[in-house]
């Protein structure tokens, strides 16, 4: 018996005269909604930061964001450039800026008091808006405004921005980050998750791994004993690697947990908001470069620099890979690769361009972190590589399929 003639699928009749709900020639997405779609990705690293840095982190983020919004509302009235400023992308940039600042800045006190650091927060927010205005009023420019703001802020306030505190595991979210010893305590060394013994302090005082690595690889470290080896640095002077992976090392607010950053970044990739090539290639290339570039394998009177430290006797693959992991996780590379380098203005628009851009970013980050600063290296690299973007866009057009 033949099959009955199949009926084409029927959509139920709606009320006659009911208007169509969605446009049919456009997806309905707007520029504001496009930028708003990024916000959930920031929730993961922010929550991790709020957990390990407490209410001061929340206050710091709020201070920056409020300053950004207020400054935007003011600067929008300034000239034709101000008319191009849109709140959604600037708000997103402000949130990224807040994530890159440490929580201890949220500290009350008279602005004339050297210990009162809170003015840095609104100042950074206002500076961001000012830079955006100077760059044309949009966040779409080859010079990443967040990276520029961070570099300027670091240049102006230097050591004040080095984080040194992290809440104890028993005081998550609620503890006071600045209720901590005035100096690192040898008893507080070891994995952060194990610091559960009762204490009168809410927080731990720990040395920033980024700061320590910078001292070593820039050759300015003075060994406490006769010499300091790379292996000794990793074993004795740095926190356990797990503290950088999960949480527990003093870092900027949004970089408390590499896992949270990864989740947020994967969310952006999943939503189609960023190209996976940039974070993937930047991290892989940076990792390889960190294995190959010359580093001090031992510091005696002067550092002994060696290329490809993994093949040096006394170092080996395990130490070299561990060192590269510390460099990757202690600095803002993950944050930069997922959240800053993928910004529409900073990265090229074509696939080939993004590939080259990511490779350049990885190389530049590795070099900048090793020889300049772990804390600022990724931002410097981004500021430099973003200048290649217009050139890559002009030279590398997509190759049509026909």
């Amino acid at each position, binding site marked *: 018996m033949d*099959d009955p003639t*199949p009926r084409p699928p029927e*959509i139920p*009749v709606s009320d006659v005269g009911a208007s*169509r709900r969605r446009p049919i020639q456009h997806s309905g997405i707007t520029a504001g909604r496009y930028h708003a779609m990024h916000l959930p990705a920031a929730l993961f690293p922010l929550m991790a930061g709020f957990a390990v840095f407490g209410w001061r982190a929340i206050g710091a983020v709020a201070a920056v964001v409020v300053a950004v919004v207020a400054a935007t509302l003011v600067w929008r009235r300034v000239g034709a450039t101000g008319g191009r400023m849109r709140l959604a992308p600037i708000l997103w940039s402000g949130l990224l800026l807040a994530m890159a600042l440490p929580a201890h800045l949220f500290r009350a006190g008279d602005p004339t008091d050297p210990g009162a650091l809170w003015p840095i927060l609104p100042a950074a927010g206002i500076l961001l808006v000012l830079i955006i205005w100077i760059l044309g009023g949009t966040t779409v420019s080859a010079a990443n405004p967040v990276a520029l703001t961070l570099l300027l802020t670091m240049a102006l306030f230097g050591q004040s921005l080095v984080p040194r505190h992290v809440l104890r595991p028993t005081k998550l979210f609620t503890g006071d980050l600045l209720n901590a010893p005035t100096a690192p305590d040898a008893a507080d060394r070891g994995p952060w998750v194990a610091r559960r013994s009762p204490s009168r302090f809410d927080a731990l005082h720990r040395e920033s791994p980024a700061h320590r690595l910078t001292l070593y690889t820039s050759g300015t470290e003075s060994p406490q004993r006769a010499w300091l080896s790379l292996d000794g640095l990793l074993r004795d002077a740095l926190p356990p690697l797990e503290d950088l992976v999960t949480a527990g090392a003093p870092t900027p607010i949004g970089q408390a947990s590499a896992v949270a950053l990864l989740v947020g970044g994967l969310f952006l990739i999943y939503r189609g908001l960023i190209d996976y090539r940039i974070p993937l290639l930047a991290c892989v290339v940076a990792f390889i470069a960190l294995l190959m570039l010359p580093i001090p394998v031992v510091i005696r009177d002067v550092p002994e620099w060696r290329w490809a430290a993994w093949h040096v006797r006394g170092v080996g693959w395990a130490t070299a890979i561990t060192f590269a992991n510390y460099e990757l996780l202690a600095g803002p590379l993950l944050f930069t690769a997922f959240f800053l380098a993928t910004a529409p203005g900073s990265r090229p*628009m*074509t696939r080939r361009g993004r590939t080259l851009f990511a490779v350049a970013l990885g190389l530049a980050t590795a070099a900048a972190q090793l020889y300049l600063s772990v804390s600022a290296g990724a931002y410097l690299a981004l500021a430099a590589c973003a200048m290649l973007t217009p050139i890559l866009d002009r030279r590398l057009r997509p190759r049509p399929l*026909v």
Partner: protein
Amino acid sequence: MFVAVGDGSAPPDAVDPSVTPPDASPADLPAWIERLTEARVIADRVTCPDLTGQLQSAMRRPIDTVICTLLPTDQHLRLEASLAATYSVEIAAAVNLLGRLTGAPQRWIVHESDAPPPFLRPIRRSADASDLRLVGLDHDYPLDHPVPLLRTLLNRRLLPGRSPAERGVILIDAPAAMAIGRLALLGQLTTSVPVAIRDHERGVNHHLWVSIGTPLRQVLAAVGWADLSLVHIGYPLREISPAPDALIGTGELVFHIARPDPPAAPDACIRCGWCIDGCPVRIHPPALLDARQFDDPDLAERAGLRACIECGICSFVCPARLPLLQSIRELRHRHG
């Protein structure tokens, strides 16, 4: 079921599978071209570009593949699959006939890989009986267009607007195959064509059988509308509106009824790159917009103007509501 519109436009009965298809050889091609033209088996639409021109090209060029595409222009309508389910014998006969006339060793029927089984079973039976190959594709708009279709199936590059025969392929769709098949098996002239209309305003689909030459207004009235400005020809993203005196004939057979989207003021480009990522032929729509604004034909050429198939995906995804498709069409109009 198809509803008749116009005089003498009742849907024909399917041909019995026992009907013997005629013999044919490449020497018969010129005669068959004439016969098809006299029988008004003429098609010139996206899924079957210039059928007569393709066959005439086949007299001068080697053809190695005959493809009948059942990929729908709109997956909610599935006109082609509906025809294939009912007229599978005719469609298979047409593909085989064209294969024998052109000497093409490869004879394929391309369908959606996730088409419902009731649509596929009849055509699968006919294809097996005729030794044709069924090719399933994961269909996503605009794979029904010859440019991405040939690229996907055969890895051959076809410039938009050029005949698939230039690449050794004869490409037809289900309505054309059905008409060819009925002529070959029954000697029947084509007096009516199937038309599918998706009414977005009322949320219903219409499948009609329309006499050739019927004004589109009359077809619209048959489904309860009078305003031609609500009609979009083909997939709405292509932004093609009918002329006031449009007739149903050899052109597009899929229409959409929908109020135009409210106009939106474009914003500055935010460089999201979605237009580039979404483009099926990998051109550079923002650069084409620049080329239009600066009237730069060299930039347009470098950005891939010639490769654009005007699918409209770039305009669809643009958060800044930039008039990308419109700019591309204006560029083509000015610079060919």
